[in-house]
């Protein structure tokens, strides 16, 4: 069982963002959804953790329809999913270590010592050793993203969702984050979904790439298939060519 989005529709007022989006994630793979800013990529991710409910269609996680879960069942589901937010969404009144420990404090049977050990492990995994006592405002953009990743993996989730993990980062830091995404797949064995408009990053981390356009999955394929696709709109997006993308 993994993640499946079946014909998902979502509108905000008159603006239709998703118009029958369908995608199935395979166990253990890292998939990327690419598309221009504002096309509904983040909206898709929020459906997977029940932050948004589809107007039509169904979102399945481990075979259960997310939209039909009761609050308690949703809480259980969310424990299986780590969510890395676009701007990290760290709690700015807490230290990095306290941020990472937040999810662990809700787990039964976890005492302070065990939580502190796990926080140290997670900070080590994202190369933030020694920065646990800093506040988010004292971190660089890349460090904040890594702290957000440490928080997301703390409770050993089965799934990791990355919302624009490299947005606003320099190329070197982008590469560091991409390597971390691959490291999470290799070392933790998580199934991951990355939404991004950064094609370099998508090619680097994804086993499969889905191009979201017009609220639907316009193309799904391996990075090699995306590179050689004959679809002008996709090529226009990948190559950053407005003439191809807009059909001018």
């Amino acid at each position, binding site marked *: 069982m993994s993640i499946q989005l079946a014909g998902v529709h979502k509108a905000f007022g008159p603006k239709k963002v998703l118009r029958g989006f369908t995608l199935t994630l395979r166990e253990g793979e890292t998939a990327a959804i690419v598309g221009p800013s504002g096309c509904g990529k983040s909206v898709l991710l*929020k459906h997977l*953790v*029940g*932050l948004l409910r589809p107007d039509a269609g169904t979102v399945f996680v481990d075979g259960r329809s997310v939209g039909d879960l009761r*609050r308690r069942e949703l*809480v259980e589901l*969310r*424990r299986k*999913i*780590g*969510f890395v*937010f*676009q*701007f990290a*969404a*760290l*709690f*700015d009144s807490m230290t990095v270590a306290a941020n990472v420990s*937040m*999810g662990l404090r*809700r787990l039964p049977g976890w005492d302070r010592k065990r939580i502190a050990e796990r926080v140290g492990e997670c900070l080590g995994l994202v190369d933030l050793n020694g920065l646990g006592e800093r506040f988010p405002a004292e971190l660089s953009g890349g460090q904040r993203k890594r702290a957000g990743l440490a*928080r997301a993996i703390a409770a050993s989730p089965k799934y990791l969702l990355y919302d624009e993990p490299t947005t606003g980062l320099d190329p070197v830091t982008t590469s560091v984050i991409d390597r971390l995404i691959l490291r999470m797949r290799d070392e933790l064995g998580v199934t991951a979904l990355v939404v991004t408009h950064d094609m370099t990053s998508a090619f680097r981390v994804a086993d499969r790439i889905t191009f979201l356009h017009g609220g639907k999955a316009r193309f799904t394929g391996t990075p090699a298939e995306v590179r050689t696709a004959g679809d002008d709109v996709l090529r226009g997006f990948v190559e950053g060519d407005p003439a191809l993308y807009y059909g001018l």
Partner: protein
Amino acid sequence: MVLFPVTVPLSRPLAASGRSTLAALGSIGQASALFAGSVRALRDIGVWGPLLLPQMARVGVASVPIALFIAMFTGIVMSLQASYTLTGTIPLYFVGTMVGKTMILELGPVLTGLTLAGRVGANISAELGTMRVTEQVDALETLAYNPIAYLVVPRTLAGILMFPFVVLLAIAMGIMSGWLTALQLLDMSSPEFIKGLRLFFEPWDVWFAVVKSVSFGAVVTGIGCFCGLQTDQGAEGVGRSATRTVVVSSMIILCLDAFWAAVLL
């Protein structure tokens, strides 16, 4: 042909008032849902329990200086104005009566409530609004927390528990400053002032102030949380939520003030 230019301008205000009514009804529905959610979230004491004391310190203890400052000058002005009003007609010890009654029944609770609507309500609204627009509220949910239990319940309980404490201190300060003013500037003696103070004093008056301040605490913190969690559109939205909190809280405080006077006195 004749109607067209007339119907268009007429339909606009009608449509606008319709939209406003729908928005107001929507807000009432959402506020009711938040209230119901808060009552349900009371069961989640493991989440809000550890946050209650820090919130009581923020909402209550930190508000004491500004509440005392306002009450002190209110007491001084009350004493001077009472003396000005009464001179030559009514015995001067009625200054004590007016200062005491007015501070306990009206100015202590209402002025403190309005002040805390600005200090506490705007603060809560801006804090939760910023958390909303920076996705920290969403992050709480993904970490299996109920945001209402984590954010709303401790703040609202802190308001309900601490507003009466702040109001009682403000009342005491107002009476003290009115007393000192009477002694220093009005040639009154302490026995005279105390005689006036005790003349129409009813212990129920203090309970009346406590009941009012509990309701003001619930309103200010509850509206702060509601407006904060409804925030959208970035920094501008945060500012709008803070302003809305202060305006709506102040209006409801004045309505509640009249309501309690009609019901309890």
